[in-house]
């Protein structure tokens, strides 16, 4: 089972720590948090990052095969990428972008992936930094199946299927 970062939405406090941590590590944030309000005083923070789709639309659109699905996840080969940006237009979740010239802020020192900005689950790290920093414990690095199980035990929130089902 491929692992990914899942979010337990009922726990997210919209603090944006994940966003800042990712930005500090990589120069620009690969996870973006915004609050959604319901007009009745209630709100919830929803982080969005690449969902490591089983059928990744970004890869389908990639003319250079720079993005591709492998057994242990979605891989990106910066050597093949031509910066055409078609993957950006193919992702239903807005989870992949081209890096802007000049880069972001923060104490960045690592740049793993050419110019395409997409969550790569912090390769080389035992725990992704967004997961490690989340003060609310809302982010979990796991596979879909056990995330679903855990959450169900904790009052039945549904698993976010890592596949871009048509919205």
């Amino acid at each position, binding site marked *: 089972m491929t692992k990914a970062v899942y979010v337990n939405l009922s726990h997210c406090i919209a603090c944006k720590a994940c966003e800042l941590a990712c930005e500090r590590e990589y120069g620009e944030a690969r996870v973006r948090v915004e609050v959604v309000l319901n007009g009745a005083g209630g709100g919830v923070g929803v982080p969005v990052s690449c969902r490591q789709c089983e059928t990744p639309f970004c890869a389908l659109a990639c003319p250079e095969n720079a993005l591709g699905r492998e057994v242990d996840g979605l891989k990106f080969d910066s050597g093949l990428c031509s910066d055409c940006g078609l993957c950006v237009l193919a992702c239903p979740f807005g989870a992949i972008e081209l890096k802007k010239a000049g880069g972001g802020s923060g104490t960045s020192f690592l740049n793993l992936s050419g110019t395409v900005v997409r969550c790569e689950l912090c390769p080389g790290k035992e725990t992704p930094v967004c997961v490690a920093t989340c003060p609310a414990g809302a982010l979990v690095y796991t596979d879909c199946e056990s995330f679903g199980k855990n959450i169900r035990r904790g009052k039945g929130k549904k698993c976010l299927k890592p596949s871009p089902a*048509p919205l």
Partner: protein
Amino acid sequence: MNKKPVYLEIDFDKCIGCRACTSSCPNGFIRLSETGRQRTIVFPESCGMDCQACVSACPEDAIRFARAQEYEEVRKNKEKQAERVISGSSEFELCFELVVCRKCKRPFATEKELKRVLEAIDAEISSSEYAWKGLCPSCRRDLLREREARAVLRVRKF
């Protein structure tokens, strides 16, 4: 004597305006600008560097390097597109009108880019209608957020 391919020939019908060539050119000879709803890519007439980075970057194979002896042919092709040649210079430009995001109304892609992307997806998955289609990446994130938040928000009413 000079066998080096130096003249750029662009197939204007093939080009989708994706910018791969502009970012691939190590010398910055292919220039990109975006103002309002218009994206403009400016190509030089010739290039002596022969790295052909743009040629291999282009997803549509719209760029061809012509040899010096083919100059006449290239020039004739270009004449058919005279309106694209920047007057007083040998450069020529391609302009694309950008599609605006259905929600935030910001321009974000060319019609041809979007068409190509959706074709690639449709070839694999037989579903043609997507709510996110006309949205820019940022509004797609919002759409996702709204959908995901629904269940949690239902119980957070005060």
